């Protein structure tokens, strides 16, 4: 349904997104994960045709975004990050306007579609209100409602649950899940449990590049089973690293903090707790151990880890 090949987007000299490629199948819910400024919104904006890519190919439903932008836009419903709606319009008038813009001409059909999305998003009580007077949560819902108008095959939702109260978040997530299946959905977020709950596949994006693509479960399995031990040791770093690496069960040693007493992140296999072995190795080599503790890896940390790993490589 969506094909992105070597997408690059530059703003002047600043590279926002670099050489991203991925595809999304029809009916799939794809999560876009990444820290602020990673390039999530930029990628989404290119997909929606808000601005063209600097380089690369983007295809939605077989149509190229630069060659047939109208065909692509007809098939996309977009909820931007900061939902900017016309503040002086009433909800119902605004949705009717969007419906007409999206090419729903006939009045009964328009009315029906508008009342459908109003019901779906739970804004029935607000339909006569002026948008500018709505709370953030309701504005978000109106934003979602306008994205759903015209029954688009692809939904692109940029942080759809930001600013909602917990009850609304649950409702919107449920709604998004229900919408998947027939529709292809890309949603960005930085709330990790959300990804785990809704998405079938996750793209972790950092610094304009893709750090990982996988199912949330796989990502979890791959990385959360590692045990990370944080150690503060004084001494010659090279010696310390080689000492630690020689301990049975160690996968990788990374130096984290500079200074006299350096911090090391020791990634170990999960089968065996080797903290004792590590401490012993340090003592045997007459190095000064200041601290030793384990770090639990939540999905949050996996995410952080992937993101920081990228930085190390760069």
């Amino acid at each position, binding site marked *: 349904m969506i094909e992105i090949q070597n997408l690059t*987007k530059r*703003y*002047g000299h600043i590279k*926002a997104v670099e050489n991203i490629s991925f595809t999304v199948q029809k009916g799939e819910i794809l999560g876009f994960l990444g820290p602020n400024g990673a390039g999530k919104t930029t990628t989404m*904006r290119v997909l*929606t*045709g*808000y*601005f*063209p890519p600097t380089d690369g190919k983007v295809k939605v439903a077989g149509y190229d975004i630069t060659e047939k932008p*109208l065909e692509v*836009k*007809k098939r*996309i419903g*977009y909820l*931007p990050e*900061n939902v*900017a*709606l*016309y*503040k*002086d*319009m009433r909800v119902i*008038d605004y949705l009717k*306007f*969007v419906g*007409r*813009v*999206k*090419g729903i001409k006939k009045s009964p059909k328009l009315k029906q579609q508008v009342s459908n999305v109003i019901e779906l998003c739970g804004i029935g009580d607000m339909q006569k209100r002026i948008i500018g007077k709505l709370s953030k949560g309701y504005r978000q819902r109106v934003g979602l409602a*306008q994205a759903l108008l015209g029954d688009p095959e692809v939904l692109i939702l940029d942080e759809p649950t930001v600013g909602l109260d917990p009850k609304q978040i649950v409702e919107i997530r449920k709604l998004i899940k229900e919408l998947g299946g027939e529709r292809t959905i890309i949603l960005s977020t930085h709330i990790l449990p959300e990804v785990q709950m809704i998405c079938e596949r996750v793209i972790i994006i950092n610094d304009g590049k893709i750090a990982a693509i996988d199912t949330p479960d796989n990502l979890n399995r791959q990385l959360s089973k590692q045990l990370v031990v944080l150690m503060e040791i004084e001494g010659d770093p090279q010696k310390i690293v080689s000492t630690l690496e020689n301990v049975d069960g160690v996968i990788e040693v990374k130096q984290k903090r500079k200074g006299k007493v350096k911090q090391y992140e020791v990634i170990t296999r999960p089968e065996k707790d080797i903290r004792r072995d590590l401490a012993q190795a340090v003592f045997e080599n007459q190095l000064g151990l200041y601290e030793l503790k384990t770090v639990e890896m939540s999905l949050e940390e996996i995410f952080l880890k992937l993101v920081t790993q990228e930085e190390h490589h760069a």
Partner: protein
Amino acid sequence: MLNSAPIFKKEIGSYFLSPIAYVVITMFLILSGYFFYSTVAYYSLISLQAMQNPYMVSGLNLTEGLISPFFANIGIIAMLIIPMLTMRLFAEEKKSGTVELLFTYPLRDLDILMGKFFAASVVYLVPIAVTLIYVFFIRSLTELPFGPVLAGYLGLILMGEAFIALGIFISSTTENQIIAAIITFGLLLLLWVIGWAANFTGPLFGKILNELSLVRHFESFSKGVIDIKDVVFYLLFTFYCLFLTCRVIESKRWRG
């Protein structure tokens, strides 16, 4: 096919749901009413004097004494008012961020632009249409030649569209409405009086300046003359500004 109807409807809505349209139309009518009153009062004063002095009667001419200044005055009001109408068209959308959704809807830039252009035109044409009352008022008092009046209105429409096109163009280049209004007004005023410099700048350059002058092309209309040259001037001016606006929108997208 142009798909401007939804945008047009929405823009008309925001003009008339907010106070903008009413304030603009009211100010327009107050000013034009005052100008009309003083023109008529002045003309009747001169008529009274002419009754006592038969030599003046031959110089007395309804078209030149009443219609021409009337249209010239409305032209000046249009120059004052139109920047206030056009300033918000793109600048507001950019400032508030609503462009993002607007540009992701299945509309071409031209659809959006023309929708906005026609909406501003309608708001401009409403008070222009109301000024017809003045014409009927004069007609109830005396015999009024219809030709010059028609020419004058045609001139007002063409010139107004040109002003609106320039205003939209400026609005598309900034996200600040006040800046849009001031630059539009400044440019209109400059183009209005640019012919003044023609007297001091040599024959060729002077002629160019004269031809650029917005008021010069309007003068013939207000005197009741429809010159194809003037019609073409305003149409080209309008098309050119709209074309530039399209390019600005496009380039803004490329730059992100």
